[in-house]
């Protein structure tokens, strides 16, 4: 077999689709045979991406005629040679080039021979653009000699310690040396030596001996993430990647440099020496750590999760992950994981069988229903669920338990009816809008990868960013204007921006000149309106947990009247958007339908009466429970004590509920208080679909088996329903999703065939537009940009396709478990047997009545009365509290992963320097922060960017829970800050 196994022949357009069986002709050259064999059996579950044709010519750019290796092709004008070659399936070797970063031309691996007017010359393909008539030779004698030369140079100082290197087996340096390198090195001298791996951050090790100075990591840190904390030091062959003295590479995105390193120089602590690439099983799935919905490849070895790698989804994450998303998978095997069902016997929780636990839960719920009716039962939580789980719980609540008291948000989001009724924008539309206004959390901390997209939009697309926020955020350095309003007064500020009335004096603490500047931005953007795309996008979420949500909802409604506006919800928790879309909110039925608008439709199809009254949200349920009005609460992946803004209310609510069921993956403060605990399958242990902030539905894949005896949530809900006398008739996810697409006006047409087919990587947007989904095909991955991901698509272009295929990838040797195709996984699924065998109860009703019309989705909410529930003027000497989440905090998932548990910042309250001066307290000294609800003692930090009337305290840090201070009934929590030294107080009051 030829050493130079360049798979130029099987270009994407000639490759057979994964689902079709190509005829095996004996005349096909060996290279094509292997490629066909590989595409026939996609290594990547669910996606079918091996069939993706190259992205179609966008049409707006001119094209030029070139030849590549003698083949005439059309390329987009201005494209780099390497991109044009990729598009037609000709692979040019590369190291420093990465499709998501600007070219630097450092490694010189991509040298090709180009015939030009002045004769032939060698050029790097990564930063020379194609031009009309260009003749490109990627494998000529000249090009081959240059490529071999560069590879020999790269190995001069490379230690070749492949047998002990984590990258061995998925290493672009190995692969390309095999395919493009000289057979052996002529270097006989001593190699450069460095101290073997040194930590450059809490999560990343650097082995400088293996480094080939491609600069991918350095460029990512600076260009993509904006954390220029690593750079090259020294020069010549002593060049090394280094951190600055005393400053570790502390970045929320550090794992990405490990992912894109083309050698084993950067390794992630949690993965080091855990597995060899050829032993890994893999599925492609969607990260649910927050609601951005980053595509990722999840990998395991011997049934143990080992790694998560970002997969390049063009409309979403561009291949990047935040470190929380990347490393949080390990939480599913933490000691705090719930392994078996438990039932309370007196003061003790004892292990129980599923049958006993379900019976106990059903008995408790039935007792509550009998005693107080359905409205005395509440269901809190749902963001952890898949769409299918959420739908089943929403249906069980309304039809079996008879309650509309359901809420996937824990008082930490926004009113569902407001969010669901607003016009929506996609992430791409946001990133290409002339103006983006944020009214929500610190996006860098809560929706970290969205921060990367926004930062890119501001720096590269000319997007203007306006922040409406009670305190500076991680995006503030990129904002055209950061309007820091007084907590609780967002609606006043929004009204001033939206109205044309003259502004005099400050508005909600914001100087009038700034407000007028924002108006000018709005006017300018309105003039730049483009058909079919919003000219202003508002990213809407909860700016602070210490101010109430109704002011934000009012502000959002005001901003909805701006010309050409659309909204991108920044509700951050996992699949919260899916849960709301599928009816896990009071007054909302599946498909963003109001309770009354959808009553007839769903009563007809569900075959049951729906609750008469609009139900309570989480705050309402907890308050009612504290007053003794709630007979049973079901916590579905919810920990109100930690996550509800007011821990006082949460605790009293849980104590006040006469019966408490918890369906969860981990033991939490709230779960500990339950009467029955039902263990739920974690993210990596079940299948389903996920809805991200845009309304994009994508696949969640199962890779490992359930921990202990945990079940998927939909099964738990179905079994509970069965024990309460209702057989829902679901025996698989397909049953559920068929019903969703049939009934929900939002999900019509979005069947599994669409979600798991061509669109798997990018998901499908609901509601579907036009004939189907977005028409574009997923962007093909670059095999050397995405090392470590096993996929047919990558192997098709991979330089070692032939060699690797021949040695290690005999189809039969690889047919086990998770790597098998999507169709099989979807069909078999490994479902548990359920007792549901009878037909749906609904059938009778459906037959008896004429079918009602399909309900319309929620529209714009009514405009709230001005200044409803606005806070009164601050009291003398008090500050308004701002509390927001940080990426690393005391949250259950973060604390369940040893590598992440200690990354959170030290608790401290940030105030304006004048506040500390007034107290006579120095920066860093302790203060006592007291509210009507409680008191905390912690260090004070002087920060000139925070207004003098505001105090900022991160949410839920170990040792300092802001929830202990917050009064959820007040529009804005006020606190007093005093020196802790003066009275010797010890804090908690």
């Amino acid at each position, binding site marked *: 077999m030829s050493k130079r196994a360049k798979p130029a022949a099987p270009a994407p357009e000639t490759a057979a689709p994964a689902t079709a069986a190509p005829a095996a002709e004996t005349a096909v050259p060996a290279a094509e045979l292997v490629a066909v064999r590989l595409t026939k059996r996609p290594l990547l579950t669910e996606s079918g991406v091996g069939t993706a044709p190259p992205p179609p010519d966008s049409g707006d750019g001119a094209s030029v005629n070139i030849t590549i290796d003698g083949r005439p092709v059309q390329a987009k004008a201005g494209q780099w040679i390497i991109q044009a070659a990729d598009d037609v399936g000709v692979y040019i070797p590369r190291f420093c080039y990465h499709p998501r970063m600007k*070219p*630097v*031309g*450092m*490694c*010189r*691996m991509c*040298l090709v021979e180009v015939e030009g007017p002045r004769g032939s*010359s*060698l*050029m*790097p393909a990564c*930063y*020379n653009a194609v031009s009309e008539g260009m003749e490109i030779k990627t494998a000529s004698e*000249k090009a081959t*000699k*240059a490529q071999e*030369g*560069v590879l*020999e*140079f*790269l190995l*001069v*100082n490379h230690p070749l310690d492949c047998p002990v290197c984590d990258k061995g087996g998925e290493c672009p340096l190995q692969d390309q040396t095999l395919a493009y390198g000289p057979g052996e090195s*002529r*270097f006989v*001298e*001593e190699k*450069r030596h460095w101290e073997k791996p040194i930590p450059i951050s809490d999560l990343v090790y650097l082995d400088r001996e293996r480094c*080939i*100075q491609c600069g991918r990591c350095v460029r990512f840190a600076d260009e993509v993430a904006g954390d220029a904390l690593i*750079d*090259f030091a*020294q*020069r*010549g*062959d*002593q*060049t090394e990647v280094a951190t600055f003295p005393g400053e570790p590479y502390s970045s929320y995105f550090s794992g990405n440099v490990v992912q894109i390193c083309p050698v084993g120089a950067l390794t992630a602590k949690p993965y080091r020496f855990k597995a060899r690439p050829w032993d890994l099983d893999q599925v492609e799935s969607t990260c649910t750590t927050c609601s951005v919905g980053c595509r990722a490849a999840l990998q395991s070895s011997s049934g143990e999760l080992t790694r998560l790698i970002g997969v390049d989804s063009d409309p979403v994450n561009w291949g990047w992950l935040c470190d929380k998303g990347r490393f949080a998978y390990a939480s599913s095997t933490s000691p705090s994981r719930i392994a078996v069902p438990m039932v309370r016997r007196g003061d003790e929780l004892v292990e129980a069988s599923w049958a006993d636990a379900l019976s106990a839960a059903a008995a408790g719920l039935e007792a509550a229903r009998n005693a107080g009716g359905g409205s005395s039962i509440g269901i809190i939580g749902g963001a952890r669920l898949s769409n299918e789980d959420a739908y089943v719980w929403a249906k069980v609540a309304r039809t079996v338990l008879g309650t509309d008291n359901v809420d996937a948000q824990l008082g930490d989001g926004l009113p569902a009816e407001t969010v669901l009724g607003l016009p929506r924008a996609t992430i791409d539309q946001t990133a290409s809008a002339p103006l983006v206004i944020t009214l929500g959390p610190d996006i860098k901390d809560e929706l970290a990868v969205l921060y990367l997209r926004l930062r890119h939009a501001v720096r590269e697309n000319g997007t203007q960013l306006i922040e409406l926020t009670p305190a500076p955020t991680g995006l503030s350095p990129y904002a055209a204007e950061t309007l820091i309003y007084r907590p609780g007064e967002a609606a006043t500020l929004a009204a001033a921006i939206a109205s044309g009335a003259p502004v005099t004096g400050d508005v909600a603490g914001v100087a009038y000149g700034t407000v007028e500047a924002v108006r000018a931005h709005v006017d300018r953007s309105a003039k730049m309106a483009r058909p079919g795309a919003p000219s202003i996008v508002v990213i809407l979420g909860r700016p602070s947990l210490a101010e109430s949500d109704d002011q934000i909802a009012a502000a959002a409604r005001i901003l909805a009247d701006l010309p050409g506006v659309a909204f991108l919800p920044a509700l951050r928790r996992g699949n919260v958007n899916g849960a709301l879309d599928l009816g896990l909110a009071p007054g909302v039925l599946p498909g963003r339908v109001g309770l009354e608008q959808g009553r007839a439709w769903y009563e007809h199809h569900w075959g049951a009466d729906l609750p008469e009254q609009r139900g309570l949200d989480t705050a309402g349920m907890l308050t009612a429970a504290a007053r003794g009005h709630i007979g049973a609460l079901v916590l579905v992946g919810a920990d109100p004590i930690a996550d509800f803004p007011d821990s006082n209310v949460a605790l009293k609510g849980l104590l006040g509920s006469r019966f408490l069921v918890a369906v969860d993956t981990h033991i939490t403060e709230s779960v500990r208080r339950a009467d029955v605990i039902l263990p739920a399958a974690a993210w990596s242990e079940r299948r389903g679909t996920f809805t991200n902030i845009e309304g994009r539905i994508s696949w969640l894949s199962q890779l490992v088996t359930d921990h202990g005896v945990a079940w998927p949530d939909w099964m738990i809900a179905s079994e509970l329903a069965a024990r309460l006398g209702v057989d829902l008739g679901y025996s698989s996810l397909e049953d559920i999703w068929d019903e969703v697409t049939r009934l929900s006006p939002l999900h019509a047409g979005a069947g599994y065939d669409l979600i798991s087919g061509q669109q798997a990587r990018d998901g499908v947007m609901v509601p579907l537009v036009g004939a189907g989904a977005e028409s574009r095909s997923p962007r093909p991955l670059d095999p050397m940009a995405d090392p470590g991901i096993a996929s047919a698509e990558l192997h098709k272009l991979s330089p070692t396709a032939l060699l690797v295929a021949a040695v290690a990838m005999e189809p039969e040797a690889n047919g086990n478990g998770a790597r098998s195709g999507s169709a099989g996984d979807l069909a078999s699924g490994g479902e548990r047997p359920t007792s549901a065998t009878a037909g749906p109860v609904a059938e009778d009703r459906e037959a008896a009545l004429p079918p009602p019309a399909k309900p319309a989705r929620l529209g714009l909410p009514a405009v709230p009365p001005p200044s409803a529930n606005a806070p009164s003027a601050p009291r003398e000497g008090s500050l308004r509290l701002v509390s927001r989440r940080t990426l690393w905090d005391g949250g259950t998932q973060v604390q369940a992963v040893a590598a992440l548990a200690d990354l959170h910042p030290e608790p401290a309250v940030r105030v304006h320097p004048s506040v500390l001066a007034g107290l006579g307290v120095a920066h860093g000294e302790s203060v006592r922060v007291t509210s009507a609800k409680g008191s905390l003692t912690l260090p004070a930090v002087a920060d000139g960017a925070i207004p003098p009337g505001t105090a900022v305290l991160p949410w839920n840090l170990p040792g300092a829970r802001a929830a202990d201070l917050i009064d959820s009934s007040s529009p804005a929590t006020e606190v007093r800050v005093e020196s802790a030294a003066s009275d010797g107080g010890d804090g908690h009051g």
Partner: protein
Amino acid sequence: MLPAAEKVITRNWGKPDSWTLEAYRKSGGYQSLEKALGMSPQAVTDEVKKSNLRGRGGAGFPTGLKWSFVPKDSPKPKYLAVNADESEPGTFKDRYILENDPHMLLEGIAIAAFALGVHTAYIYARGEFKFPTQRLQGAVDEAYQAGFFGPSMLGKGFALDVYVVRGAGAYICGEETGMLESLEGKKGWPRLKPPFPAVVGLFGSPTVVNNVETLASVPAILEHGAAWYAKLGTEKSGGTKLICLSGSVKRPGVFEISMRTTVRQLIEDERYGQGMPAGRKVKAVIPGGSSAPVLAANELDVELEFEALKKVDNMAGSGGVIVMDDTTCMVRSLWRVIRFYAEESCGQCTPCREGGGWLEKILERIERGQGRESDLDLLMDVCDNISPGVAWPPAQTTICVLGPSMPPAVAAGIQMFRDEYLTHVREGRCPFPPDRLLLRLARV
């Protein structure tokens, strides 16, 4: 017959306090500037074009042409960056200008700035130039006081600020885009080209980068006219040239010569090198800085001029002529040269970063008597991989020309002194007396 050399650049050298404004004005200094300010900027550029002045930094690019590349209607500010990062081994002429006649440079800067519409000029001086920079800064201060620099040049309303910046000791910062990076406060890594500095240069703005000697030549062009200057030189290259003569000659130093002067004349003539030390003969000469290939003893009748040297596949470069006599070990001297480049490689491009270090290690091995005959072919092939064909101008195997500067020197050394290399290999030792300093300095 040896042509007479006009003193253009060196005319004030050796006069009392030649570096002061007072001395410079006594010899007619800054009158060219006044003359230029009476002309249109385009006329000044045209005059420089007609003078056939070519860049003295090494590449010999026509200066007037370079000036005309700067976009006339750029909304961005334009900059002039003066390259005083003179670091090539064997080259030390700009240093003499800075020390002996800094005002001649400053007048050239003022004229160039006026011609280009530049209001800010930076002089980037080599980090090791502590004393020359002091002299230069003194002169800049004097020029401000005298009204040549500042908000209104000679009261004519043209604003010019001139800043002196000292580097931190990196040869690569003499590469024009490396220098621009360094001026911006970054690591001196050369940039991808295009775009070229004339379009996207300092702080993303159009920038002209000129060498010290180049700009110091401008006042004389304005004073005596382009025709006079052009006539001093050859058909394609106007003016005189500063040569830095070093190595095995009786009188090393900086000399202003006619470009019609041959290497042999430079070594032998009483006005210049005054011949070899007693008993020594020329073995080889590097004619244009350390990256130029060596000339053998029988090749010395070539003129020290861009085109003439190009014809014999050599280069005039930055004017550093290094004479090696018959006691010089050619392996050791090449090792010394390559060690410099390997050490000064910025580390960006693989061929230069790894190839340079590898060449150095092979040469060191041969010099220490551990060479193999196959090493000669290996050296040549490594060179070919750094710069395919060992041709000039080099292919785009590297971002800048530092890497491709190595192969010509290596190739010439091996081809011309193959026997000496083989002697090292066969005898397992260097046949020349040891050079303790060099061996101690070896990086490995």
